């Protein structure tokens, strides 16, 4: 256990139950690093997760308060929690791509619309891996999975001029970014910015699943190959040219941090105003 884990994570939960070599640990660690660099303590963060690899493997790892919600609904749970808990306590969520961009997208858009403070880290293993390896909403075109045996031929959420981050931006999110998990320092810096936004922040982070995705898409569970494959299909925004096929344009997409009222804050202010009116 390294120093950071010792400080913030429950000994009983580390190492997590993720397959050995899974890239999820990189994303998880970057989040804890960002929290540490901002000097947050255990009691400053309420950590929520959902189901699937990303939720299950990160649930209960935080030494402070934790919850795991139903699939795709954690954004609604977080909106309720946000109204109940102290405004200075941050809600962070580690969820999967299926949770955020599939089953939970509508709830996520409404969390963005209301600009509810939560820092959502979408840990994207490119499909449904904990159920065995079915295609998801960011599975790259042509990729074989257990449910796309002829190659992924449905349009996805990140290709062909279509980007789910644009939809979330239009819905009202105040901070949006994308990274791949091996971009350690940029990912930490982005997460720090996300955490400093008192509103809805989402960071989409692609990480290598060496068990199901690597086996189906690349024909081998070799983790070096899988890590290189993800790295080779990513490029910082504006640097996509160069002959490589780029699936993930990385960096900060949208930063309107702290420009819109946060949901619970505006609800509370309005409530106080109504109370004053009726009692006055």
């Amino acid at each position, binding site marked *: 256990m390294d120093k950071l884990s010792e400080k913030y994570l429950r000994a*009983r*939960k580390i190492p997590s139950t993720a397959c050995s070599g899974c890239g999820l640990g990189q994303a998880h660690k970057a989040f804890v690093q960002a929290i540490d660099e901002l000097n947050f303590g*255990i*009691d400053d963060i*309420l950590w929520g*997760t959902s*189901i699937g690899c990303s939720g*299950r493997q990160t*649930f*209960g790892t935080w*030494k*402070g*308060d*934790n*919850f*795991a*919600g*139903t699939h795709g*609904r954690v954004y*609604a*749970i*977080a*909106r*309720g*929690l*946000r*109204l*109940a*808990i*102290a405004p200075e*306590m941050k809600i962070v969520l580690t969820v999967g791509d299926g949770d955020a961009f599939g089953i939970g997208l*509508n*709830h996520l858009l*409404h969390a963005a619309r209301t600009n509810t403070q939560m820092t959502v880290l979408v840990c994207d293993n490119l499909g449904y891996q904990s159920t065995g390896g079915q295609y998801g909403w960011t599975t790259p075109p042509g990729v074989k999975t257990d449910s796309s045996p002829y190659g992924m031929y449905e349009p996805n959420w990140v290709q062909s001029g279509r980007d789910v981050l644009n939809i979330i931006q239009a819905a009202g999110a105040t901070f949006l970014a994308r990274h791949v998990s091996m971009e350690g320092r940029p990912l930490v810096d982005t997460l720090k910015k996300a955490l400093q936004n008192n509103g809805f922040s989402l960071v989409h982070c692609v990480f290598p699943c060496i068990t199901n995705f690597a086996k189906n898409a690349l024909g081998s569970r070799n983790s070096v190959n899988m890590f290189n494959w993800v790295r080779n299909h990513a490029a910082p925004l504006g640097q996509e040219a160069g002959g490589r096929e780029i699936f993930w344009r990385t960096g900060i997409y949208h930063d309107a941090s702290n420009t819109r009222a946060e949901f619970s804050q505006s*609800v*509370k202010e*309005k*409530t*106080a105003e*109504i*109370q004053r009116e*009726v009692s006055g």
Partner: protein
Amino acid sequence: MKRFLETGNFAVTEGAIMAGCRLFAGYPITPATEIAEAMSVELPKVGGYYVQAEDECAAMHIAVGAAAGGMKTMTATSGPGFILYADPYGWAIGCEIPIVVLNSQRVGPVSGITGAPGQGEFYNSRYPTQGGNYETIVLAPNSAQEAMELTVEAFYLSERFRTPVTVLADQLITDGLEDISVPETDEEKTAMGMRFVERKVNAGPDFYPPSDAIDIPPVVLGKGTGAMCSDWTPTEEGYDIETVEAHHKHSYRMIYKIRNNRDVITRYEELFLDDDPELIVVAYGTPSRTVKTAVKKAREKGVKVGMIRPVSLWPFPDEAFTRKAIYLTVELLYDGQMVREVQRATPCDSPVHFFGKCGELPTVTELHETFDKLLRGEPLGRIGWEREAW
């Protein structure tokens, strides 16, 4: 005491606020929309929050989320929305989070008839989520006044048992205008039998003690206690675990905290049972009012008929059904649901019959004809349908 001529929706709102509810999350649906509207008017006045959600699933998740954060919260819907509560209802049961859910039943299935009363969620309220391994608490008012009082009771029970509690009303209760007395002083509240309990915070480290005890404070997030709650089978400290032994402890608590403390929950109303009547009529909710009138009038004519009205539907008040008699259940649906529970609870040599109406109350005349047939030993047939032109 304040008196109003108001709807059940208003009464429920008054009861909830009195019980300490400070967040309501809902999604518009007939005939429960007016509860949301009344909450949007009244809650901010007492410093509470009204949240309109993107759908019913989100509505209950928001309410459960706020409850997990330590607030007393509530949501209200009708059948088509209640089924969408299945997911968060399960989360609240599994994480043992207190919350109150009101279902104003209408004619189903699916959208059915929006503005007419039904009783189709009798079983759905017992099994509001998947997976089994739990018991539920459901209270059924038969008037606007009682809707207010049972809403208060639902908050009380949800805290003590740390579980969601459903108030199973119907369209006539929530939409109907009635005379409502709202208590103002503690004495008036006590005189009405109202019970109150505050939210307490479980400080851990054991958030889920393996016991059937009640009055164990629930997990509250955001208090820095290191609380953990999840949709997975928990250990005592809240960690997720995949062992049957741990699940046995978890289910034992969810089932037996309710079964072994039934006396705190169970309630029912009896009428004319002291002289061992030949016929006992069973009804809950609004139809019980017509049944009561019919039974009283039949008595005046010397017919030996009595009545049982379950107020707590789940746990079902089995103890009320020990007498040997002919039983008749009167329900607002054609398929008959409570009739099976009555069959189960009554002595095996007591025949149980069913009279169904849908979307409208039975008339006293219809009920008297039915009583007479049963007492003459004649078969009932499907009376509601026989009278249709087709």
